[in-house]
């Protein structure tokens, strides 16, 4: 098929045979909801489509459905995700493996509909797994993998595969879709660990004084850590079954003998691959790391890469004001004790196009930092009028 990222997400839910969808439309996620409701109307699925009055309600309905044993799906973006915020903690702490594609869109003010990661980044501490996609194929494949990872007995956590507003959500490109049967073989029926059942009543998410909560928090950390292995297993199984390998928490591109590497997320990765090839042809030893999972964060993987390079650049499409870009902050945490310069690049905020020249500048600044053994500026804003990069 030649389809949008939004369609890929909706189609992923269809072939994963989800039982319940509760969602509220918001640009640029709207097509996910529309496309799935068409599947329901056309009789392609017997999933229950719950129309709700807000994203807060959407997530609440998903939590209830998942707790009742249903495989559940929703999707949102930007302000919608922010409105869901408090319920995201509930879904994760109750270990309900809901899958929710998020279309990364700038969070107001000012109002914009284009790509920025300031919507998903604030949700990194909710206990959801987060994975950032580069292509529509990856969006579809990660919906399937998200269910398999999230529903794994050792994980039981919700997953947020995300895609860049418009650059994927509204872009068509060829996507291969496995059949429902093929997916059914790969992804067994959801086996809930606790079910809300009137004949067998139980209580979930009830009041807990300090004597109990800390143990429950520790469980969240254990399952999130466990997800590292499961992500790799599922990736490898998927690659074997469907022939597409995303390499797990990160993907390395031409890093083998690289002097410097740049860490990118989302669609900028595709453009950066072109730049790496261009610069390699010029004899510059540059490589690329695609940061796929942000939760759990690939601490060991990035450290391993860093041990063999002279400097690292980290691209961020969001800023944690007063500190740094989220990917940069976490990368430096992963690299603690290693003596190499790390440079943070901010670009493409509010959906500004990140072009090859921007990425080349990131590589050149990182090469310069490698040569000098230190970064002239640790935080570099690229393409900001009135600010020297």
């Amino acid at each position, binding site marked *: 098929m030649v389809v949008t990222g939004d369609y890929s997400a909706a189609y992923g839910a269809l072939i994963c045979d989800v039982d319940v969808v509760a969602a509220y439309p918001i*640009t640029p996620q709207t097509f996910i909801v529309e496309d799935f409701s068409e599947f329901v109307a056309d009789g392609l699925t017997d999933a229950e489509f719950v129309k709700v009055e807000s994203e807060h309600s959407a997530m609440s309905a998903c939590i209830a459905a998942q707790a009742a044993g249903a495989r559940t799906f929703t999707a949102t973006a930007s302000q919608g995700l922010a409105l869901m915020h408090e319920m995201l903690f509930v879904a994760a702490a109750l270990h309900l493996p809901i899958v929710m594609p998020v279309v990364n869109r700038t969070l107001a003010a000012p109002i914009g509909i284009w790509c920025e990661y300031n919507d998903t980044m604030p949700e990194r501490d909710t206990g959801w797994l987060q994975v950032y996609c580069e292509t529509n194929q990856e969006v579809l494949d990660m919906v399937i993998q998200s269910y398999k990872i999230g529903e794994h007995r050792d994980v039981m956590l919700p997953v947020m595969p995300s895609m860049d507003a*418009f650059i994927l959500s*509204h*872009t068509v490109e060829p996507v291969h879709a496995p059949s429902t049967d093929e997916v059914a073989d790969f992804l067994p029926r959801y086996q809930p660990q606790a079910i809300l059942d009137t004949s067998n009543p139980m209580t979930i998410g009830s009041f807990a004084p300090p004597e109990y909560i800390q143990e429950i928090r520790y469980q969240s950390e254990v399952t999130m850590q466990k997800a590292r292995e499961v992500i790799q297993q599922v990736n490898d199984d998927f690659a074997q079954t469907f022939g597409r390998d995303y390499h797990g928490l990160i993907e390395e591109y031409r890093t083998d003998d690289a002097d410097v590497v740049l860490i990118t997320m989302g669609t900028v990765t*595709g453009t950066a691959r072109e730049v790496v090839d261009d610069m390699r042809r010029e004899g510059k030893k540059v490589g690329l790391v695609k940061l796929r999972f942000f939760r759990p964060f690939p601490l060991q993987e990035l450290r391993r890469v860093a041990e063999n390079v002279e400097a690292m650049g980290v691209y961020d499409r969001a800023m944690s004001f007063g500190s740094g870009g989220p990917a940069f902050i976490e990368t430096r945490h992963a690299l603690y004790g290693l003596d190499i310069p790390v440079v943070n690049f901010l670009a493409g905020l509010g959906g500004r*196009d990140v072009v090859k020249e921007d990425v080349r500048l990131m590589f050149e600044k990182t090469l310069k930092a490698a040569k000098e053994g230190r970064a002239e500026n640790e935080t570099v804003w690229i393409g900001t009028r*009135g600010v020297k990069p």
Partner: protein
Amino acid sequence: MAAQTYALAAVMEDNYAVSFPFFGAERRGAPVMAFTRVDKDVIRIKTQIYEPDYVVVLDETLLETVDVLKGLKEDGMVVINTARRPDEVQLSREVNCATVDATSISLELLGRPITNTSMLGALARATGEVSMESIERAIMEKFGGKLGTEAGEKNARAARKAYQDLQVGMCRGGKDFVPRKEWLPTVQEMPLGGSIGALETEAGLVGIGSFVRNKTGDWRTFIPHVDHDKCIGCRMCWFYCPEGCITMEDQKAVIDFDYCKGCGICAQECPVDAISMERERR
């Protein structure tokens, strides 16, 4: 939709293709762009296209305000929806140019001035990169699927007609464009948080009151005509006009053509059929 359909047709011929839109204001009639890349190999780059091989112009009024050839490769081609011949079109430079009156074709075959599918046929002929048969198949899949077989076939016929009617030649060059001035403030110049009142900039007035100068009536394809003998002054058109550009004078509807976008809602709502929509002649 048309850009996506072109990508689909290209993929049907064993290419890889990527297509995406860029919206400005989210409203009907506002200028939009769409980009399509076609290659034999997988396309990894995710940026907009700055140096196209082909430029397709669906709305000829843009030729007056935008240098549509900006970035177009030397041997590139511009394909324009216009009733004029290529050599009657003057642009910033002399380049390969193909023209077709897609608006008339669409009005004749679809009953609406939606020209995107017609222009697909024109593009197929102009470029020779994708066959007309694949365009028709892609239209049937894309439009036939959503709008029904009949609508799909009508659109495919419109594309075929544009394919046949296309005139290929060279446009004339030498048209001077005063580049549209944009307000692009630096961090230092930007009002805190982007909160502005009425601000005079190099691009004119920005913020409060800017629409007094920014006439949006030139987006119109159809123009409403009010027959004052029939108008009963009921104000239904005034009530429904989404642009708020109808006023009542002596109990008769009067339309402000500086802002009327020709949506036709007034004509639709008028209980005595006093308003008719006519093709805009510029």
